[in-house]
């Protein structure tokens, strides 16, 4: 494997991804990511000098519209999906003391 993923890198990516991996999962992730990056490195065979990165296949412009509310108040049903709620609000675990 050409891409050796260090523990520091996996921990850093874990922070970015907001994922907590067990030691076993971490080892697997290091292996998986290393082999995927080896494979992705194949793209370096191509000379892309002067080529514009293409994020969208059609040349669409930003789409604007008037800021008018068209959907109704559906608070009750929306709150039904909340893991926890109190007084018509989403309840979250205590975040600071």
């Amino acid at each position, binding site marked *: 494997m050409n891409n050796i993923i260090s523990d520091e890198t996996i921990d850093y990516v874990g922070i970015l991804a907001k*994922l907590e991996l067990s030691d076993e999962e971490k080892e697997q992730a290091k292996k998986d990511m290393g082999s995927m990056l080896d494979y992705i490195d194949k793209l370096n065979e191509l000379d892309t000098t002067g080529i514009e990165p293409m994020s969208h296949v059609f040349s669409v412009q930003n789409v604007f519209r008037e800021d008018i509310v068209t959907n109704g108040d559906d608070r009750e049903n929306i709150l039904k999906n909340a893991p926890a709620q109190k007084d018509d609000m989403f309840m979250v*675990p205590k975040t600071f003391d």
Partner: protein
Amino acid sequence: MENILSYSAVELGAAIKAGKTTAVEAMEAVLESIGKKEKEINAYVTVDRERALEKATQTQKKIEQGELTGALAGVPAAIKDNMCTAGMLTTCSSKILGNFVPTYTAEAVLNLEKAGAVVIGKTNMDEFAMGSTTETSAFGVTRNPRNTQYVPGGSSGGSAAAVAAEECFFALGSDTGGSIRQPAGFCGVVGMKPTYGTVSRYGLIAYGSSLDQIGPLAKNVADCAAVLEAITSHDTKDSTSVERGDTDFTSALVDDVKGMRIGIPRDYFGEGLDDEVRTAVLAAADVLKENGAVIEEFDLSLVEYAIPTYYTIAAAEASSNLERFDGIKYGYRTPDAEGLGLHNMYKKTRSEGFGAEVKRRIMLGSFVLSSGYYDAYYLKALKVKAMIKKAFDDAFKKYDLILGPIAPTTAPKLGESLSDPLKMYLGDIYTISVNLAGLPAISVPCGEDAKGLPIGMQLISDSFQEKKLIRAAYAYEQGRKERA
């Protein structure tokens, strides 16, 4: 009356219109079929019998009153479980959305309902559409109805299996890298991915937003065209939705390919392609040739770069799109959240809620977007994407269509794919570049291997040329019938 389940969607619609059967009878027949087969196939995550029968009853009334007259009025349909359905569980086959009941319905599903189709329930899929076998679902694997020891393909494996097992008359799927076409090929049904932007993504739970597109899985090409016609719309709620005028797709059901120029990429028939698949796909090309199409081999180029490009872009977009699953407003939250602090609550919730393949792609995506690696990986992939699009542009200067296989092999056995992700990804080689270039493509059954597993042929056209695809696929279907 003959077995109603063997009707195509359009045949059923016509029979209901003619008063030979009703939307309710059709729904009862489908629910009975589901009752018999689901234990073995597991195509559905959710079947809402009561609601389905109630909607069928309402629809039948509207048909009788002349309010609903379309080709699909009264026809029972299955919806992939990544499209929101108001009041009906929508899980994306993930534990993290295991209890999610949307408050709104995806635009594509609304369009279907406007056309009179009746939703049966939600079909199984790879978790968040990440996978090629429907084995990464949190709700069990779906089995291939043609041989239950094999996978149905994925990620729309539940939709393909439901159509193949006569557990619905047609289904909607979504296709990010082949997720409609490949399971259609593996289960022996017709599947179509339209041009990017043709069908609204509003209410489709996002995976790779620049690649995702909703499309039909159906028993034949005519059904596929009718469903696509019904779900296509310009939707201001999806800013990538395209306004297009030529959406009367059923008008392209013409048995005539005379003079149509079809290119066969040599790069699609090289190493790694199973011999039986090669033979069947080339035989399909012969059928089109006998009917007057002009077939020619050519070099498409860049084929081997599509997979690394795709997995970089799709993983990057996935890592961003899936940030919203945080255990706050809906979905799963870790049971011992109190006292963890906000960030640890997020982390624990997501780590417990997502499966292995989803985590793998989120990690990869976070890495390729991270500072220091963004240019080398993500930007590089976007540049190669531009090159791949150009290769297709060049090909479509010479050809109306490109013809090739859907996948290098027929369906793999259950349990044999997930241990080697990279090998599984390689199976997407013929489907993936179509999504990168935003093109439409259709998968049509073209034979079976020695084990009796279906083989699929893929036709690809330039953007907005779905009618050419439909015409050629229809002509092939008719030509093959005549031969048999």
